[in-house]
């Protein structure tokens, strides 16, 4: 136990080093982009004297290392610079866009868990049966379909043809700007504001993108649940429980499942980390104003402060979730203890 805790502490300590590397790589990529950042700010028609002045203002005339040092110094003081695209500070933008992605990912992982785990348990208890095969192919299909195609198909079918779901975006236009942002999670903010119409609207807009993401990430959850479950069902305590004459459902859910739940937490944390990045394409298709879209748009416009900030946020979330998975495994798994 002690050396595991030590390993965990070491993993936590390495996070800043990894982040430093992340910032450095992103910074370098930004500086070799074939887009002149000055053009990104002042446009194509600006006269040379305006461009020269802005180049000076941005400090682009200084050596690369100095520029990086300046950026790092600001970063340590919590200043991520200003985004060209939004005219706001990057910190302000992240506060605005990240919750949208978070909300999407939370709902997606919730749906994926609620469907994926029972499917995995079902497949494990019927190992080798037709149901097992169907579950397997269904999940693999989810992992194989291009998200952008699935998203576009959903829009055509559920929005256009059937009219069951609202269109793209995060909320209906008449609610825009009427809900005071508290948490940034629209479903929660609408409830805090006590506005049921807006809450329904926010949920309805979440359904399609979250559904698409959930289907995509369900495969891994189901697969791991099935594997852990098979493992657990073969364990001695389950055999003992069966011998005691406990009902099959009780054996499966109480004994076997209880035993694998900690390991599943690890799986969920990793899946969630994957979701944050899987959101990039989904957000593009559904015009979801999240961090993924912010990142892509900024990248294509050489808005490097924004790109660095957004990459940092996603990177931090990813690392923390990994750490969480490690911690859950180390601290809670009875087998490790």
């Amino acid at each position: 136990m002690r050396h595991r805790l030590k390993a965990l502490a070491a993993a936590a300590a390495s996070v800043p080093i990894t982040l430093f590397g992340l910032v450095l790589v992103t910074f370098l990529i930004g500086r070799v982009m074939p887009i002149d950042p000055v053009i990104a700010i002042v446009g194509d028609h600006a006269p040379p004297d305006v461009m020269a002045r802005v180049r000076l203002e941005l400090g682009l005339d200084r050596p690369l290392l100095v520029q990086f040092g300046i950026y790092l110094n600001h970063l340590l003081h919590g200043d991520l610079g200003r985004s060209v695209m939004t005219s706001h500070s990057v910190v302000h933008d992240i506060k605005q866009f990240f919750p949208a992605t978070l909300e999407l990912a939370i709902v997606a992982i919730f749906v994926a868990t609620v469907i994926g785990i029972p499917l995995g348990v079902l497949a494990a208890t019927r190992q080798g049966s037709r149901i097992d095969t169907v579950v397997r192919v269904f999940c693999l299909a989810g992992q194989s379909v291009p998200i952008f195609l699935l998203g576009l198909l959903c829009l055509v079918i559920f929005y256009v043809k059937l009219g069951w779901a609202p269109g793209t975006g995060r909320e209906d236009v008449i609610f825009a700007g009427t809900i005071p942002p508290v948490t940034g999670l629209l479903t929660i903010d609408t409830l805090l504001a006590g506005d049921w119409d807006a809450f329904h609207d926010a949920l309805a807009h979440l359904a399609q993108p979250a559904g698409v993401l959930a289907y995509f990430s369900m495969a891994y959850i189901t697969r791991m649940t099935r594997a852990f479950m098979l493992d657990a069902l073969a364990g001695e305590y389950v055999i003992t429980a069966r011998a005691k004459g406990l009902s099959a459902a009780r054996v499966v859910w109480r004994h076997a499942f209880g035993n694998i739940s900690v390991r599943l937490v690890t799986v969920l944390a990793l899946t969630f980390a994957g979701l944050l990045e899987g959101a990039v394409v989904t957000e593009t298709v559904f015009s979801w104003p999240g961090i993924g879209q912010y990142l892509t748009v900024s990248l294509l416009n050489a808005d490097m402060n924004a790109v660095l900030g957004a990459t940092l946020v996603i990177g931090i979330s990813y690392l923390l979730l990994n750490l969480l998975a490690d911690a859950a495994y180390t601290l809670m798994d009875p087998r490790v203890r």
Partner: protein
Amino acid sequence: MLTRRHLLAATAATPLATIGFAGAAEAKTPRGVAVMAKQIDDIISFDPAEAYEFSNNEVDANVYRRLVAPDPHDNTKIAGDLAKSWTVSPDGTTFTFQLKTNARFPSGKAVTAEDAAYSLQRVVKLNKTPGFIITQFGFTKDNVDSLIHATGPHTLVLKLPAPQATSFVLFCLTANVGSIVEKATAVKHEAAGDMGNGWLKTNTAGAGPYQMVSWAASDHINMTPNPHSGIHVNTPRIVIRHVKDPSAQLLLLQKGDADIVRDLTPDQIKTVAADKNFHITQSPQGSSMYIAMNQTMPELAKPQVIQAIKWAIDYDAIAKNITPNSWVVSQSFLPKGLPGALTTEPFHKDVAKAKALMAEAGLKDGFACTMDYISAAPYGDIAQAVQADLAAIGIKVTLVAGEQKQVITKTRARTHQLAMLVWGTDYFDPNSNAQAFCANPDDSDNSKLKILAWRSHFVDKELTDMVTQATAELDAAKRVAIYTKMQQLSQERAPFAMLLQKISSAELGKGVSGFVIGPLPDYTKYAEIKKA
């Protein structure tokens, strides 16, 4: 502030209750709100002294007013906007504007000559991207206070350091950069001597019919009427929603979730045109699509090759099949609608003639080169069609796609061979494009004028001189004659194959009317938008 509760009170039912008619065209958007779906991710700033993209210029056109504006009945003439009248001294250097007295800012204060003088001085002193439109007349931050000033509460005097064609000066003042900002507001929000630039980036203070109440980048813009403007508006709220995907825009229109959509593809416009519930409004724009041929490449520097390329392209097939309703053939550097533009199209696809020209250039077997183009629609399709056309005369083109800013960065570095690009006129006067496509007084890397001719190493003394000659010509008819001659010379010699001119269109939902697209975003008007 307007809240959603007010809106709901104005409509009979909540929007949720009306979902469900697939393909139904009933306006679902609340009454009194016009919802426009548009790509607005180009916006950087709303400050007229800085704004220089399409979407922000269009918003500013409805939030700010200028001294003068193009005559709505004839775009090539000038009418007063904030100015009631004006006089020009015989030598063409002193302009005296009398301002109307009934225009007011949202604060309720009247627009004064002091506001106007401050706004123009501000443009020169800040010298942001569009600043050159004003500074090109010779204004500097040191002389502008004495040259542009108010001589009475409603009298503004503008003195030019050197004589300029009168229409040239006036058309430049119709551009967004000539917008009049409320001085008191700008001064109140001034920080570190920025003349309110930081605040005006994301807020507005103009005397136009609307004011902007909220903006979220790449998401939405919310506009409500300026209660004191004195201009009647039909719709008490305009919401512009950023919808990147044209398919999604079409959906919103068909489902009644948007009243106006702006970025449909040609095929989608056909679909809308076939549906009698909707109607379409169009206007030619000051944007030209062209292929630049870099003169550092020996093959492309041969006059016959320049001609051969112009004769190889199937302009009509591209316009008719790939870009119906969105780009039309336009083969001179002045797009139609601009004062002085040619109306004839001399080139058409003639493979035999083009091949003969190639042989004459000593390139019977052709050559290979690259062509940079913008990866978005419809440029990709057009680039591929051009690639096939040029292959027919032996020019093997490798396509290189890039984001618009990337292609521009490359052509500014002059490292392209062929490049297919778009150029939008800076202001509604022939000089903008004439200078861009013809003037290259200094081809060195230190040139002060690095626009299109310079970027492709096109050096032509005669054309360069004609540019300056035309801006100083006070006789309007003679000035037009110079531009006619320049366009003809350019078609013969310039390494620019002018292809198409943009047609901007908007698709309006059932019962929606009154939306006016201007020939430049600076002239697009929302005030008449009406929902039945």
